[in-house]
């Protein structure tokens, strides 16, 4: 369970998160929508401790993420995150990209890590690209590799930060399909996205962020079908 309690975060004088309260249950798929600068991506990087927070707290399975005593490297093993940029490691093959952290961080044997990497890469449809270097692949393929790389750590939660935003339009579908597959398998996911159709389909709940505030959160049919918040109504009207 991820518990977010009254979280505040500022960059200089700009307050990007103004007291966010949110709980994500095991097995839940939560998508976060909202305009740019609404704080939704920042929240994700706060959850895995890449960003500090200025108030409140975030608790993952009982561990306070930003407590001094917390071993963030250990905590991050259970929080997979995939970013807008694919962040492929260009000097490693696809297989090596996925094997690196399981070997170096989890201390798995090469054979063990390779078996897991092959399994995850096959799962995301890259089983025939094992020996290829990332720069020989399309953006969509690189992004699916990044997903497999995160999954190879056997995380309990997956955070997706606008993972289709840097893709050519014709490549968005294959990555969304991968996310749909994960959702249907019961992975706990928080997806920050601009893909409204996707959000409507896969989410258990959808949260709308506006200017650092979670203005509305509801099941998709309710949030999209009968939005209450005025800013959300404007936002949805503009995106349709």
């Amino acid at each position, binding site marked *: 369970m991820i518990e977010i309690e009254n979280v505040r975060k500022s960059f200089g004088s700009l307050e990007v998160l103004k007291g966010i309260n949110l709980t994500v249950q095991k097995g839940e798929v939560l998508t976060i929508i909202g305009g740019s600068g609404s704080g939704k991506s920042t929240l994700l990087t706060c959850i*895995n401790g*890449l960003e500090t927070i200025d108030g409140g707290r975030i608790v993952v399975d009982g561990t306070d993420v930003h407590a001094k005593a917390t071993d963030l*490297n*250990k905590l*991050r*093993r259970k*929080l*997979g*995150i995939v*970013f807008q*940029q694919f*962040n492929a*490691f*260009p*000097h490693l093959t696809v297989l090596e990209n996925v094997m*690196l*952290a399981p070997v*170096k*961080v*989890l201390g798995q044997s090469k054979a063990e890590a390779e078996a897991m990497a092959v399994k995850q890469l096959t799962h995301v449809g890259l089983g025939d690209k094992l020996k290829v*270097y*990332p*720069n020989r692949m399309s953006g969509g393929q690189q992004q699916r590799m*990044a997903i497999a*790389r*995160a999954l190879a*750590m056997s995380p309990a939660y997956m955070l997706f930060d606008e993972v289709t935003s840097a893709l050519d339009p014709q490549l968005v579908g294959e990555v969304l399909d991968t996310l749909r597959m994960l959702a249907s398998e019961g992975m706990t996911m928080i997806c920050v996205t601009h893909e409204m159709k996707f959000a409507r389909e896969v989410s258990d709940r959808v949260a709308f962020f506006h200017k650092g505030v979670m203005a509305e959160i509801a099941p998709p049919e309710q949030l999209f079908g009968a939005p209450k918040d005025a800013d959300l109504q404007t936002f949805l009207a503009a995106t349709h």
Partner: protein
Amino acid sequence: MFSYNFHWNQAFKALPQMLEGALVTLQIALLSMAIGLAVALALTLFRLSGNRILNGFATAWVEVARNTPALFQIYMAHFGLGNFGIHLSPYTALLVGIAFNNAGYLAENFRGALKAIPDTQTRAGRSLGMTPLQAFRYIVMPQMLRIAFLPATNQMVWAILMTSLGVTVGMNTDLAGVTQALNAVSFRTFEFFALAAVIYYVIAKAVTLAARLAATRMFRY
């Protein structure tokens, strides 16, 4: 107006001796590069550490190495340290002086290379649970070394040429030292130094070509 009689035979007779010297030259250059690379990596980590003292130390090293004559650096290693009771042989002093110089230039190469690697690479590594050092070691450093590889081969050539400064601290077994000794007894300055220059040129070119070849084999992405 031009009455010098060339005596190339004397020089060619000394060729085996000079080639032996060339091996010593190459050995010093290679060792100084190995030491320089290791120190440059350490200096790079110091600069990334966020520790002011370590960062200051690394910056001072790079500044001195790059902005003072290599001759002075080698002089300091021999005569300068000698004043403090640390007596290095000409060979060691030359090695230390060149390694000092190499480390400074290579650390600066690394710094430039690091600028070309986006922060998001480290971020991705940290997100996978890596420590900062692991992210550097497995993700950033290999990319940095690749970018810095060809500039580093320039430094290797420079290291080969710098070994000739060893004659100023009494080095007499490397190519310049051997040549200087032969010159001292024969006064055939032009012939001996011309031949030595050709040998330096050939070594330098061979190193550059070997490095290019190695690069295409090592970097397959």
